[in-house]
């Protein structure tokens, strides 16, 4: 497997400028954040426009749908089109939708008249709990496996991790989820196969219901993190400054954590950022396997009834989420590399 090689200074596109005083390093991070934001603006407009134009692509006639077959006289349809703002050109409609969305108003469902923002905020905690727990599990499992494999390079654990990673990368999250259900719910009767309890009701119950979906979701990311961390850690551990630290007699654990891991963690973090949108997609898989009342179920229901405002709102929330996570990851990586990026 080829891996993204970001362990070298400059590998992230950071300027390999001569060593700078500490104050300027902070500014570099800020500049990166600013530069990232500047690139983000067109991306946000583009992805939201794609999302909004989906509605226009559809041949559905919202006014007629809302009114029902009997009441949908041309005059009534025209009146409702005006009320919904559908008589404007697409770009104007898009702008109105976006400005409303910024204020937290995503419109109402065509069928239930429930505000879209409300249905989304009801469902979001489910996916958020799964995704957050999955990230924690992935960092714990993948991080441990990657570090141990790199330190014991060539040993049986290293070979085992490599094999497990290849095996996991062919198994989609929904298949992993089914295997976990068969194993832990149907065969061992340890955990529930489906359902959900909110953390406000009972935290242990909540954990019981989300641990299997989160585990199913995290395995792929764990494998990616383990693979990437192993590669970059092996490379970093062979560098002169690690040898130097060893010669100076620093304890190995300290060298590993403060010298090697800090420099090797960047690529794994980037992987986490790249994987995150796919994790949200995987959360839909986990929802489907474990029958959780999350965003994916809402999406499937509204796609079936062709409830376009709900679909648009969901896509907007998800893509905004992805953009924000990417920005956070990029900034964190810039911060991690604040000394190395400027030459050491």
């Amino acid at each position, binding site marked *: 497997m080829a891996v993204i090689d970001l362990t070298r200074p400059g590998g992230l596109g950071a300027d390999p400028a001569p060593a700078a005083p500490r104050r300027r390093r902070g500014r570099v991070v800020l500049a990166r954040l600013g530069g990232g934001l500047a690139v983000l603006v067109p991306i946000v407009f583009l992805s939201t426009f794609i999302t909004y134009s989906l509605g226009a692509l559809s041949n559905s006639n919202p006014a007629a749908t809302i009114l029902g077959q009997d009441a949908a006289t041309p005059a009534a349809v025209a009146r409702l089109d005006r009320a919904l703002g559908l008589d404007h050109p697409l770009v104007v409609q898009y702008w109105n939708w976006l400005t409303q969305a910024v204020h937290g108003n995503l419109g109402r469902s065509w069928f239930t008249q429930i505000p879209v923002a409300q249905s989304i905020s009801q469902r979001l905690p489910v996916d958020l709990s799964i995704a957050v727990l999955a990230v924690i599990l992935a960092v714990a499992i993948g991080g441990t496996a990657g570090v141990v494999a790199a330190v014991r390079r060539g040993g049986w654990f290293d070979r085992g991790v490599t094999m497990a990673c290849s095996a996991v*990368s062919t198994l*989609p999250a929904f298949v992993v989820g089914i295997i976990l259900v068969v194993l832990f719910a149907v065969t061992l009767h340890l955990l529930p196969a489906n359902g959900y309890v909110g953390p406000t009701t009972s935290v242990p119950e909540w954990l019981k219901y989300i641990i299997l979906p989160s585990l199913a979701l995290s395995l792929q990311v764990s494998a990616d993190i383990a693979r990437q961390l192993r590669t970059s850690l092996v490379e970093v551990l062979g560098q002169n400054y690690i040898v130097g630290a060893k010669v100076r007699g620093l304890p190995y654990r300290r060298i590993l954590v403060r010298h090697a891991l800090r420099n090797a963690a960047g690529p794994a973090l980037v992987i986490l950022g790249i994987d995150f949108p796919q994790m949200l997609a995987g959360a839909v898989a986990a929802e489907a396997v474990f029958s959780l009342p999350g965003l994916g179920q809402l999406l499937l229901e509204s796609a079936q009834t062709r409830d376009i405002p709900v679909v648009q709102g969901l896509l907007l929330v998800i893509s905004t989420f992805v953009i924000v996570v990417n920005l956070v990851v990029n900034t964190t990586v810039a911060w991690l590399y604040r000394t190395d990026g400027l030459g050491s």
Partner: protein
Amino acid sequence: MTGRASSRSRRRSLLRTPSFWIAAAILAIVAFLAVFGSALAPQNPLAINAGALFQGPGAHHLLGTDYLGRDVLSRLMAGTRLSVLTALEAVVIGLVLGAIPGVATVFLGRWFDFAANRVADALMTLPYVFFAVAVTAALGNSLPHAMLPVGILLAPGFFRVTRAATLEHARAQYVEAAELLGASKLRVIRVHVLRKVLPNIAVTTASMTAAALLAVSFLTFLGIGVQPPAPTWGGILSSDLDYLSQAPWAPFIPGALIAITVGALNALADAFRDRSSAGTLMPVGQPDPSVESVDGDRQSQSVA
């Protein structure tokens, strides 16, 4: 070249890699099933048999029966064509929309490059499941409709890989020499660049096909794009999930089929990569910040 190096390159040759042959054999079987699967199916994949529900693999039903007593082997064979064809549909869309601008952008100037990159970035913020389901809401619930957005979302992967590979070769001295000799841009691309970029495109195509196949399986698992009696790999998996207490082994059969096919495609991508050293877009020792090394097979690993 020393004797040792040439024997090494021979050993790494594509035709001598066992994993290449295993992968190719598996994919040949899948391709064969895609063409002849429904004709060769031992039984009618839709025939309900109330007397033989949830049977395990046996002589009469090689892979057992499902909750309606239908033959699982026949259903899998008959379902292969739709899964494979729609996966290929997405890959072709991604290839055309991604690889062509990926090569062209290097020669079309900075503004086009900036715009194309922002479009790719924007597309990458849309998770494919959400986008695909949303498009079926807009265009109507059919699998070809659902795979259109998947193809569009595969395009940024193709775009980045081809752009990075083209950038690498477009600055080579022989390209400069050809330009100085007065060769047109099209000729430079066709004669000098395209051939060098093809291995990268091949690797990406293999891993993107794996990603597309996972996408098809997952979408059909969710019930997108197919009417219930028609068999699909994901659909079989999803109905097995409802009857786990009666037949806990059942989902492993379609699950293994999906995993083996996807694994074969990934192995093929790896074999191409090892052979051509395509995919190492950022050679060790000369990091190039302007070349975004986004590995095509990252997508296939992290899909679903």
